[in-house]
């Protein structure tokens, strides 16, 4: 071993191996961290049009749960809308799910975004299907309908890291 490689080479290999140990889990986590099937549901939007999650199979779906009284939810919405506008053409679907029960409250925020906002007034999807324990909550679903990431709390969706992550997810599935 020592004849084949000098000290600096061995050091380089050690560093490379350690780097690999660090990099492999993180890239794996970006593409396959959860991989559980996203529970299907049908909810209506403000216009009464029914949306079935399974109908979006083949697209990368960002499911964003929010409530009008949740300040963090309102704060992250413009960046989520920006992400949607930027990656819609590549197959990104953003769906907002409001757990409010007053239409006027929903309309106030829903009117500010261009993606569909569905009404989960009885909390059936929120509680029984996804059991969300913090708001806002964002679920990333891949083209196969599997959950790849759950984000609890507010997030800047316009960050380079997040856009890169989404772009990677969109491209990854396009290759298959």
């Amino acid at each position, binding site marked *: 071993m020592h004849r084949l490689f000098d000290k600096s080479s061995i050091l380089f290999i050690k560093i490379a191996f350690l780097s690999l140990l660090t990099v492999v889990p993180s890239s794996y986590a970006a593409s396959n961290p959860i991989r559980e099937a996203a529970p299907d549901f049908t909810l209506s939007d403000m216009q009464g049009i029914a949306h079935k999650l399974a109908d979006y199979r083949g697209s990368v779906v960002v499911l964003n749960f929010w*409530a009008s009284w949740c300040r963090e939810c309102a704060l992250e919405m413009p960046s989520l809308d920006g992400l949607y506008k930027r990656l819609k053409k590549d197959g990104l679907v953003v769906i907002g799910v409001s757990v409010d029960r007053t239409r006027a409250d929903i309309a106030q925020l829903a009117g500010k975004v261009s993606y569909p906002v569905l009404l989960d007034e*009885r*909390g059936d999807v929120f*509680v029984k299907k996804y059991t969300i324990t913090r708001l806002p909550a964002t679920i990333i679903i891949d083209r196969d309908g599997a959950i790849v990431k759950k984000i609890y709390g507010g997030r800047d969706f316009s960050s380079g890291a997040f856009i890169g992550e989404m772009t990677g997810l969109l491209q990854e599935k396009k290759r298959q």
Partner: protein
Amino acid sequence: MKRLYGHIGATLFTVLLIGCGPSTFLIDKAGTSAYFGRNSQFLNKKLCTSDELRLILADADLPREMESDFYRYTCSEEKSYDKVISLYLVLTPVEKLRLKRAFEKHGYEVNRLHC
């Protein structure tokens, strides 16, 4: 002295951070306390066996389906603290307050300093 204050500040911040995880609220009766919805003997005895929870939920005047879901996820075999937290999140601020007031009406002390 500045360093001491720094340490105290950091400790408080950590405690706040840890204490602000997803939860419902603390209810206390006769010196025993538990988070509403959490699986505990105290809750089971006080709220479920005596059926007091049904009265409290009725007093809170929540939507009918939510009332039965709160009972189901606190007292039945489908007990789930995560689902109680989730249900609690869905309540409007006014409903959350009504639920706490209903507990107080039945002799419980509610931790108003919850996160």
